[in-house]
């Protein structure tokens, strides 16, 4: 759903490419043995290598390489058997070496593609240009002292994957969908936790506008966009800014801009002229990285079922809609929960209960699925009671609420509270007779042609049976008796 923006001079098309930095899940850093644990005391996780002490040398973390290959496979991308670490040279206090070890000309992962699911129920492919490994920088702390800045090197040297997309994204919704899907894939793979608020996933957004189908416009790179919501806001702001400039007869500068979440605006960080010359060259402390076919294939066997595969399977095997399948596969644990509930139940009914009831109540109480008082086994039990007619759908909602409060099994609650559906025709007939006897006026009116009153009688019977009467039996008896 390519979103076109109406300007004063006509429609504009948005062109977006994204660079996502994802911190690799690994116990130690890319080139040192220091821990990567989040939230430790400043400078407590810094090796001599991370602090760039004289004579220190990087040694590549093999596990991180495996994680990168795994991610590349998960992004349906080409794995490059030879890749090269280079030095990106620039000065900054949180960059102890005076250069970042990164991959430049020869990244470990090449071109690939992922599917994104759009709100209108369509699916779009977004191309992946490359994925490369690089070191994270440390963190400058400017709020610790009135005149001095401090540096925390805990993050210095942690492994990042930079994942670059093709400029295939056409608007804020697509950008949000891309980021969400990418995060989902990384979480499925276990290669990045995707926690944007902790900074373990960060996005730079390249934005330009053009007349539909026209040549590409000049892009601005927006940095510091650290949530899915911020990505959308930043794009909305930046697109308007660029359109206004062009429609006023100006030209968009190729520059790096910073997203300010407080003011909800982007502002210039540095122009093209001020851009650094990073003087990239192959790091002579590291040999070219070789990954063999055997290694790639052995990593491939460790891949989990990925979100899109799961989505398609849910649609094919369980007959779910694209929307339901997309909601259920959003988290691995959610998908698993669903499958546990659906397995020997009506799969569509199970999807309704998981999505509408369970996720609804968890969301309302701000709880995660892992904190749910209702186990998959218990929800499965509840659905069985509905399916075999033990309880009605209406009663089931009450039982569900009880299950959420107590954590008890559905059958136990139904038993304790005597909520079993009454299907005994004799018992129901007695109530029907009672209702008919109590409402002679309405009986007359109904017989006189007011068909709509049928619902009134059903309601009265259900009320008297405390909802336990089997609705089908009630209908049948009422029809018979009211003639």
């Amino acid at each position, binding site marked *: 759903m390519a979103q076109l923006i109406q300007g004063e001079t006509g429609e504009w098309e948005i062109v977006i490419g994204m660079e996502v930095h994802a911190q690799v899940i690994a116990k130690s850093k890319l080139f040192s043995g220091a821990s990567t644990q989040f939230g430790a005391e400043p400078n407590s996780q810094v090796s001599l290598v991370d602090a760039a002490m*004289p*004579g220190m*040398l990087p040694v590549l973390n093999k596990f991180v390489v495996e994680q990168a290959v795994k991610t590349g496979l998960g992004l349906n991308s080409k794995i490059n058997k030879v890749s090269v670490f280079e030095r990106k040279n620039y*000065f900054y206090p949180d960059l102890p070496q005076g250069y970042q070890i990164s991959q430049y000309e020869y990244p470990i992962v090449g071109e690939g593609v992922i599917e994104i699911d759009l709100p209108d129920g369509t699916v779009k492919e977004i191309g992946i240009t490359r994925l490369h490994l690089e070191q994270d920088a440390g963190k400058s702390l400017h709020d610790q002292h009135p005149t001095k800045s401090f540096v925390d090197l805990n993050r210095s040297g942690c492994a990042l994957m930079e994942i670059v997309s093709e400029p295939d994204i056409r608007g804020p919704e697509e950008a949000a969908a891309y980021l969400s899907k990418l995060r989902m894939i990384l979480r499925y793979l276990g290669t990045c936790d995707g926690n944007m608020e902790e900074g373990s996933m960060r996005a730079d957004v390249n934005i330009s506008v053009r007349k539909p189908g026209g040549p590409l416009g000049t892009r601005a790179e927006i940095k510091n966009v650290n949530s899915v919501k911020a990505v959308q806001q930043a794009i909305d702001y930046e697109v308007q800014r660029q359109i206004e400039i062009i429609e006023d007869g100006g030209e968009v500068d190729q520059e790096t801009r910073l997203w300010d979440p407080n003011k909800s605006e982007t502002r210039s960080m540095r122009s093209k002229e001020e851009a650094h010359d990073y*003087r990239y060259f192959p790091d002579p402390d*590291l040999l070219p990285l070789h990954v063999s076919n055997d290694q790639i294939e052995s990593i491939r066997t460790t891949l989990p079922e990925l979100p899109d595969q799961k989505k398609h399977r849910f649609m094919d095997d369980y007959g779910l809609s694209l929307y339901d399948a997309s909601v259920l596969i959003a988290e691995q644990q959610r998908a698993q929960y669903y499958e546990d509930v659906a397995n020997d139940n009506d799969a569509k009914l199970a999807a309704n209960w998981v999505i509408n009831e369970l996720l609804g109540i968890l969301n309302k109480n701000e709880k995660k699925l892992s904190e749910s008082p209702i186990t998959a086994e218990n929800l499965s039990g509840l659905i069985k009671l509905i399916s075999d007619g033990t309880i009605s759908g209406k009663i089931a909602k009450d039982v569900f609420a009880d299950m959420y409060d107590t954590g008890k099994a559905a059958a136990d609650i139904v038993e304790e509270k005597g909520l079993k559906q009454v299907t005994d025709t004799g018992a129901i007939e007695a109530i029907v007779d009672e209702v008919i006897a109590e409402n002679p006026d309405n009986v007359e009116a109904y017989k006189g042609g007011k068909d709509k009153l049928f619902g009134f009688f059903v309601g009265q019977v259900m009320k008297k049976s405390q909802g336990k009467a089997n609705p089908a039996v009630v209908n049948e008896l009422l029809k018979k008796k009211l003639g």
Partner: protein
Amino acid sequence: MTELTHLTIEDALKGLKNKDFSAKELAEAHIEAMEGARDLNAFIVETPEIALKQAEESDKRYASGDEGLLDGIPFANKDLFCTEGTQTTAASKILEGFVPQYTSTVGQNLADAGAVMLGKANLDQFAMGSSNTTSAFGNVINPWKTSDGKDLVPGGSSGGSAAAVAARISMGATATDTGGSIRQPASFCGISGIKPTYGRCSRWGVVAFSSSLDHPGPLARTVKDNALMLQAMAGYDPKDSTSANKPVPDYAAAMTGDMKGMKIGIPKEYRLDGMPEEIGKLWDQGAQWLKEAGAEIVDISLPHTKYALPAYYIIAPAEASSNLARYDGVKYGHRSKDAETLADMYAKTRAEGFGDEVQRRIMIGAYVLSAGYYDAYYIKAQKIRRLILNDFEKAYETVDAILTPTAPSAAFPIGENEDDPIKMYLNDVFTVTANLAGVPGMSVPAGLDANGLPLGLQILGKAWDEETVFKVGGVIEEAAQFNAMPQKVMSKAA
């Protein structure tokens, strides 16, 4: 008994084993020599207390019979090798006062072999130089003098190491060779030194100049002593990704003197116009010695030799400009006191901390790596590097080793060549090729020039074949019977 400081390592080990003298006595004799030769300025920091403590421990090991390969041998540690608890400066103000929390792998290997550290040897700043005149801690003086008593450079960058060994202050020394920094000072000071194959000695804990060209190695007075030193220093180090996981052969055992069936290459490109005649003569003499010992002498060509020096002076500064970026005043070492802004702090810290030659090379390096110049300089130089390696590989299809002069001149007076960096860089003309190709090279003293100054011959070998280099070096040494001593030492003896 011979004066202890004049012994070779080989003989000193015998004496220690025989209990002719103790490691402590040996250390004391060398400490005395070190204190008596301070005018050479060979050390930035003397560590007599460490030497004595290590010597006492060494004596205990001799007493219990579990001594190491170099137990009790006093050595000078080039101040590029980080030493836990002892200041390490790379002869630069920018690291003045820096005390590492770690010891280099090579230094640790020597300590594990029982060697005794006398101090941190002076050098050219960040190992950039061929004369040891770029040190922030003053020039090193060659113990050899001209006949009129003029002070000469000891060569560089391992000038302090070479001067200490030549002046009989230490029996051996650690050194590094990025473009000739072991071999050229060895030649200038009348001692031996070997730059092993790239990857043989770990670079971990050695202050980096140019990572792909830096080679740690030893200096000592004899070829055999170098074999013993290298034996202890070498070995695989998982902390250095460019270290080779290969067993270290018994180098001393390789010195059989047997030249039969061996082919020695004489590369025509090393016969430079304007080179002193006596150097050419000595080279011929060296070839003659090897022939007499049974080797076949083969004329060979290393056609890309003339491009080596320019390529070297692109690659080495390029890597240095990046390696030295970490000296920024933020974490350790010098920080300018009168900086207002961050950019100001970087600029002033580095302007105050780095010497002229270091700044020159950082600027050259940054230039050749910058956008628009990278392909023309850096990439081109890397291609030349490959061609130079190809030259060697082709030559080694027919020859076992190559013989050349070590340097185009003998030691020159301090101050000479200072006005012209290019002239200074020419000192490395015979040595840089081995750094670019990573192959081993050794300098052995082979004679004196007309002024009575030592001249060395260089033996180049195949990658990983230091054994042949030691074997050929041993034959040259035996034939040359080089027993001249620096005036400094003779005047003391007299």
